[in-house]
């Protein structure tokens, strides 16, 4: 029989880590890859259908409207600020700052969400009019589901911080929540360009 020997005593290892050292970060990354890849497939399909047309949007289909989507894009870019600051505060373990910036993030989510409704209609073609309309609506609609999840997550986390004393590992979750927000807004930028700006350009 073999004797056992202690090679590592891990009892004093940290229990709260950030970034790639944390399991939840990897889970978040996995989710982002999956959803980002789904969007890539939808965009590829959008361009696949494009090649069936001479004109894009198809004849007698109006261009998407640009005003509301551009305003919302601007608000989303601005939202990077409170979200980023929340992550920085979390890594500093500054609970008061975290709460402040989470509230700010939650507040800025409201106009984003509301304007998203008009953003969908700004496509200016119904999803059941033609394949162009179908593709545009499904891409924006799918992104909307990611946005809803992100906002629900953020509101929930903010609420939890006010409902109880959160453990230190919640700081890691806060940083991961910001990580997901960067993705949700970041992936919107090419979608905005392709769906709203694109038809005027190509």
């Amino acid at each position, binding site marked *: 029989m073999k004797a*056992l020997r202690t090679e590592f005593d891990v009892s004093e290892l*940290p*229990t709260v880590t950030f970034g790639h050292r944390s399991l939840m970060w990897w*889970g978040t990354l996995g989710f982002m890859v999956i959803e980002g890849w789904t969007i890539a497939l939808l965009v590829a399909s959008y361009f*696949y259908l494009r090649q069936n047309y001479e004109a894009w949007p198809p004849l007698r289909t109006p261009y998407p409207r640009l005003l509301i989507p551009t305003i919302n894009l601007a608000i989303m870019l601005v939202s990077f600020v409170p979200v980023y600051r929340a992550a920085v505060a979390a890594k500093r373990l500054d609970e008061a700052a975290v709460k402040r910036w989470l509230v700010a993030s939650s507040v800025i989510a409201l106009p984003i969400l509301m304007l998203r409704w008009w953003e969908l209609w700004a496509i200016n073609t119904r999803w059941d009019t033609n394949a162009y309309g179908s593709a545009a609506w*499904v891409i924006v609609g799918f992104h909307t589901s990611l946005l809803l999840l992100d906002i629900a997550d953020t509101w929930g986390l903010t609420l939890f911080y006010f409902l109880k004393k959160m453990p230190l590992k919640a700081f890691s979750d806060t940083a991961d929540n910001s990580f997901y927000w960067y993705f949700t807004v970041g992936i919107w930028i090419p979608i905005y360009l392709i769906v709203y700006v694109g038809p005027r350009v190509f």
Partner: protein
Amino acid sequence: MSAPRGQQPATVTLAGDDLARDSATLEALWRDCPGFWGWLTAVDHKSIGKRYIITAFLMFLAGGIEAALMRAQLARPENTLLGPDQYNQIFTTHGTTMMFLFAVPMMTAMGIYFVPLMVGARSIAFPRLNAFGYWTYLVGVVFLYVCLFANTGPDAGWFAYTPLSGPAYSPGHRVDVWAQLVTFTEIAALAAAVNVIVTTFKMRAPGMSLNRIPLFVWAQLVVAFMIVFAMPAVATGSTLMLAADRAVNTHWFNAAEGGDALLWQHIFWFFGHPEVYIIFLPALGFVTPIVETFSRRKVVGYTALVLANITTAFFAFGLWVHHMFATPIPELGQSLFTAASMLIAIPTGVQIFCWIATMWSGRLRLATPLLFVLGFIFTFVNGGITGVMLASVAFDKQAHDTFFVVAHLHYVLVGGAVMPLFGAFYYWFPKITGRLLGETLGKWHFWLFLIGVNVAFFPMHVLGLNGMPRRVYTYLAATGWGPLNLVASLGATTIALSVLLFVINAVWSWMGGAPAGADPWGSSGLEWAAASPAPSYNFLHIPVVTSRHPLWDPIAERPVVTGLSTTRREVLITTTFDARPDSLHQHPDASIWPLYLALCMGVTFIGSIFTPYLVLVGLALSLIGIAGWGWTGTRASGPERVATPRPVTEGL
């Protein structure tokens, strides 16, 4: 030298260990709650893995019954056992069941059960996500079969080509059932894949650097990445496109409004080809440990085998158009896919050469697991060769959509995945249940299965080339296809008999077979260091690994990890490449939220077939579930220590 077989792990302890007290404490800490509630709230990866394996096997039997019905109908020309409507539902459900409800879930189930044990971890990375994946899968199983028995089974094929599967030509809800089933199985597969990747990257035992992980784990890891990139395609196609066309009149596939029927085929096969490698590669991961153990030597070409797995996975994403050679796609493009489809034979060939070389230079014990490996080589190589034939555009235009392809796909899937899977069952059944499967029944099972598979499927090559297309519920006597169809049906009967023997063997052995002990075969992997079956906490002390074949290490002392908590569920996180201890993570206790959320998914997606209001209801209910899941995840018992930041140069 190798550990003697048939004994419990060494009960040598460290100074200060009280084996009985420590194992009882840990067992109570990590085990599922007792009773029915415990069953509903279980998050132990072994519990989830076991039920996944059993459910997937029941799906194999269901798919087999569907196949038996099909073969009974086709045994004679112009047979009237099944009418066209029944036959179309049955062949669709056969394919859907085998591909979505048996093959992929079974392979991910083996990963869920064994990867944590093989990498020396207490648990899987995300236990609640794991449970959620299983429950979602189960919702899909129940949904499909309830609908089938209600005469609302999908009937447009497991591949559901548009526009046949669209709203105009498949009215009613049958294809919607298929589309939502795909959603459920896709969610389950992705949950399993994320779990396998993160467990493998971050929770390995110290010393198990990436170049020391077992080939079983490599296969699971590679396949998990494939799932991440393939499954979204079928989910996009079925849920965001086909279901949308059917429910809210989008025009993705409607040529009259700018849609394109071929878009479906591209999206589906972009998933569909990797799908078959998602089924096949884990089976290759079973073969290596079986060959090693029963040849009593380390496998030839570990690095080559790893690289072959990775290469195959990449290539698999570049083959999909070979399912579309009969469509009007430009021929230059088709040629690229011919080349890729032929070249993918090379990495697989390398793997087979390595295994044969291992057996040639080893000392063989022809136990049932190794017999199934030999059966795999015989059967799969045949299928691989017909696959190379089908890579030729000119020949494929003759053989596509005929029984030649039915023969090919069954040779590669039954030979390449099911045979290694049966071998894996005989090999790892003792680890799961603590008992050995009967060897005599096992050999009968093997021989009948091998003969049955070849008698059933070989004639189909000839039938296909003699003009018999696929997915036909009958054929005229004048075609001359009758005799070979009868032979194939007799082969199918033999397969059924052999599987029955296996079921008898499994049930009998589970209830009262020979006790196995921790390491009945003299194997090399870490899972054989745990008891059979493993306790809830897997390892009393996480082992420290010093080679690719830990249990075959000729070292005097076993280094281990100490210091993991015995009062809360704590797992060790290690660095990604070198597996140095990095941090501790508190894992969740049993939870009802995974089941709750899976049921909400059911309401949402099944409801979407009928009315958007159910979708809103389902989403609202899901929100509660996410909140509950998150809330219970914010518990922290015990002291918390925050990590100091570490430069990246010290390793990921």
